[in-house]
């Protein structure tokens, strides 16, 4: 870009303002030179930044933001507090050290949370989340979601038998909205909307066709809250008319609990006042709803401290559980502990990834150094020709090279055929060279070798041959001249190539997936498995974060040692 627009239009110096000796140096327009220069520089910087800005924004949005989003997933734990909001709050005061499961209020909260989750079909998602931390919880939540509407069956039947209006959807609608023209209170509706949106992640905006009555909301807050949730869900999600739909059992259970606990019905004269009073008198004669026993009846896991320890430990919005899992640890009885022997896999996978990357890196150095040396010391024309043999694999599709190795290494493949033909192995004793570590190492060494040769070559071609000749003429042997004079100068090339190859190797996915079998896979393959098959995205994100950290440290080192500006391609 040109620099012509940076300086402002020159202005003729004013007639009377002859430069004085004490003044700082002035530019043509009379401003001090220093400020003028600073302004020019600032304009230049600004222009450079404006040229960079589109790309920077593009990369930030399409690439950096997704990665940050994924990193966030590794600690995020919204699903538990969003699905069991009341339970998580209620269980806060409970401690597993007490030696018994939490009290009735916690189970009552669990009942309401689970009921809604089951209606919205979100309880299985919670089950699979908690199953990562405590095996078996998935089926507990599935069966509990199915049977949760049986809780308090006796009391519900008694209420329905008392007066048939309790089975009437229109009666409920009138009771909850306070009849026509009654003062409304939108607060419960707003709370219900928040609850549903957090639970489902969907938008519950829009008209529910229902506004809770102010009077009834004051007397029976929980019932109104439950009914509002029911109303919103029915109107928005099911698309039905609230006044013509029978309310959920959870609403009736909330009502029974509230009137039993002595809701103040004395001053109430809105719709259904008589029925409410009758129900209160009836409920007084009924036994309490035993939520704890009911849940223990559905699944005995609810009667175990371990279940509640998991819920209480993973109730927060953030969790370290995925990272602990990625390090083969868990949040056990006595704090953080190692997982059982048969569940440890990730530390081994990380070790294997590191080990195989190191082997591949070492193999690349061994094979790459002689070639780079040869290319750097041959005449230009020959070197350029031979360089094509290095660049062609570099330009060839990764899948082509991987499939070529699959063809070569198979038991019925080219290499085995040649060996059998030469009589080195019998036809029955064909070598197994694929679907194991050997196959992965050979194929990846071949694929990454150009990335080693190219940086080595660019360093070696700058080493003057005269140094070695001088060493030789001073009496050094061939080996001494190489080892003491040439090799130290080529070390930067080895460093650059090794870091590059290592960075690329530890994140490899395709080649290990295709030729690695079970013993030659990397941590990347496990990440892919958790994303597409087991759907444990948090764990995938935690494993990815660890891998990414390792790569970024290496990247930083590469930048320090080589400088990213000095990366050369071909």
């Amino acid at each position: 870009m040109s620099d012509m627009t940076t300086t402002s239009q020159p202005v003729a110096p004013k007639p009377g303002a002859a430069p004085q000796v004490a003044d700082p140096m002035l530019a043509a327009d009379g401003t001090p030179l220093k400020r003028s220069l600073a302004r020019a520089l600032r304009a230049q910087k600004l222009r450079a930044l404006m040229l960079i800005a589109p790309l920077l924004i593009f990369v930030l949005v399409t690439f950096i933001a997704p990665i940050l989003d994924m990193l966030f997933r590794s600690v995020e734990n919204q699903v538990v507090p969003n699905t069991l909001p009341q339970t998580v709050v209620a269980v806060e005061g409970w401690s597993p050290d007490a030696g018994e499961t939490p009290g009735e209020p916690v189970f009552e909260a669990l009942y309401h949370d689970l009921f809604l989750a089951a209606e919205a079909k979100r309880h299985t998602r919670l089950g699979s989340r908690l199953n990562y931390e405590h095996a078996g919880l998935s089926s507990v939540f599935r069966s509990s979601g199915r049977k949760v509407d049986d809780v308090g069956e006796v009391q519900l039947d008694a209420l329905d038998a008392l007066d048939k209006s309790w089975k009437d959807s229109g009666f409920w609608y009138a009771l909850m909205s306070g009849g026509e023209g009654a003062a409304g209170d939108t607060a419960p509706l707003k709370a219900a909307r928040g609850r549903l949106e957090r639970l489902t992640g969907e938008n519950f905006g829009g008209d529910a066709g229902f506004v809770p009555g102010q009077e009834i909301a004051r007397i029976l807050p929980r019932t109104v809250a439950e009914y509002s949730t029911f109303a919103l869900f029915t109107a928005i999600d099911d698309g039905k008319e609230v006044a013509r739909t029978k309310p959920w059992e959870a609403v009736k259970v909330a009502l029974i609990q509230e009137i039993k606990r002595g809701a103040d019905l004395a001053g109430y004269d809105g719709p259904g006042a008589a029925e409410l009073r009758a129900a209160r008198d009836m409920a007084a004669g009924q036994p309490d709803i035993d939520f704890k026993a009911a849940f223990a009846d559905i699944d005995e896991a609810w009667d175990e401290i371990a279940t509640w320890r998991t819920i209480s430990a993973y109730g927060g919005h953030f969790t370290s559980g995925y990272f602990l899992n990625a390090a083969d640890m868990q949040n056990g009885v006595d704090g953080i502990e190692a997982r059982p022997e048969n569940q440890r896999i990730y530390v081994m996978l990380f070790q294997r990834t590191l080990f195989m990357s190191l082997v591949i890196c070492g193999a690349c150095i061994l094979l790459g150094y002689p070639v780079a040396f040869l290319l750097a010391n041959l005449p230009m024309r020959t070197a350029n020709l031979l360089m094509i043999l290095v660049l062609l694999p570099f330009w060839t599709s990764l899948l082509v090279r991987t499939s070529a190795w699959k063809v070569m290494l198979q038991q019925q493949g080219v290499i085995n055929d040649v060996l059998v033909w030469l009589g080195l192995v019998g036809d029955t004793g064909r070598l197994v060279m694929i679907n194991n570590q050997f196959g992965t190492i050979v194929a990846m060494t071949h694929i990454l070798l150009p990335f080693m040769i190219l940086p080595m070559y660019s360093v070696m071609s700058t080493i003057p041959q005269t140094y070695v000749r001088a060493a030789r003429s001073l009496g050094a042997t061939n080996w001494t001249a190489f080892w003491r004079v040439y090799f130290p100068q080529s070390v930067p090339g080895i460093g650059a190539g090794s870091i590059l190859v290592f960075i690329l190797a530890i994140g490899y996915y395709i080649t290990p997936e295709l030729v690695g079998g079970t013993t030659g896979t990397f941590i990347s393959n496990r990440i892919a498995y958790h994303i597409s098959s087991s759907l444990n995205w948090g764990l995938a994100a935690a494993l990815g974060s660890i891998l990414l950290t390792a790569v970024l440290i290496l990247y930083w080192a590469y930048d320090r040692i080589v400088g990213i500006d000095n990366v050369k391609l071909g």
Partner: protein
Amino acid sequence: MATYTLRYVEKKPLSFSLPVLAAAGGFAGLFVGAAQSTMLNGIAGGAVLLAVLGFLALGVLDERREKPVRWGVMALMAAGGWIMGGLAGLIVGIAFGWFFGWFVYWIGEGRYRAHLLPYLTPGQVLGHYAFRVTCGLIFFFLITPIVVVMPLSFNAENFFTFTPRMLALDPEGFSLKHYRDFFTNPDWQQALWNSVAIAPVATFLSVSFGTLAAIGLSSEHVPFRRAIMAVLISPMIVPLIISAAGMYFFYSRLGLQGTYWGVVLAHAALGIPFVIITVTATLVGFDRSLTRAAANLGANPVTTFFRVQMPLILPGVISGGLFAFITSFDEVVVVLFVGSAGQKTLPWQMFIGLREQISPTILAVATILVAISIVLLTTVEMLRRRSERLRGLSPG
């Protein structure tokens, strides 16, 4: 003025040449013998044959008879090959004859020292050639997998290995049926069109954003240059599986997952580092006084860019574009996650083919892709040389 070069080429005694030739002959005979399933006979026959040939050529006949002797050796070996292995044997025989005709004189006349320093000891000479052979083997390792795929793609059978009929060069053993399958199978055709639809658009995005940014980055006063550079290069460094996972989650939220534009944007992001690297490398040698001169002569910045700067950095821009293109064209991990069945690209189809039912059509596709990469590589090399010539960096 005559230049005098010290050379150390002299005829070697037969006591040196004949054992060396016999050893080489034995080694070659091993392969011939293996093909006839009598390895020991092969080794012995090869050693004797070469020793006799060497004796005839070096001891009996004059050095000036070199040409007829070499033709004779070639004819002899070709005939032997024809008898043993038909057409394929004939070709191998001609190659062997050509090589050994040359080799006999190379060893016997001491020509192997022609390009070496005259004071090297025999051990150093051996070391030199051992090193060359090692390098040759490494080049062999680099290129063989790519070369092996090509003939296999013409296999008439659905095998991944050379059939006896192929080895005998029987035309019946070869066919174009895998290519025909590639060009008629709707799965492969759809994949090809998807690749062709995605890669150019992604390349266009990377090149246009990348070139502008590279120009910005190459100016002298850029704040946070190192940090910006690190961010822009990161798509090349971050493991693809992490990029793919991140994009999968993030693009699902934006509704881009499983759409054409999602894949294009992802591929454009992956191609950007290559454009930045190649274009900034070209700009290093760019003479800034040219833009000042253009400005001085009254050109506005846009004219200066298109008429002065762009033609000079064009080779870098094009090779960056080719890199971005091949990145998108070869990419499989990100498209597996970000794309849906509607965006199934060629590498994706190959990946499925390799993982599930391995069909030889893959080899035909591989051969076509290798041909494409040869074309791209040649273009990039020519551009690089042209750019260096423009900047006066290289003598060639």
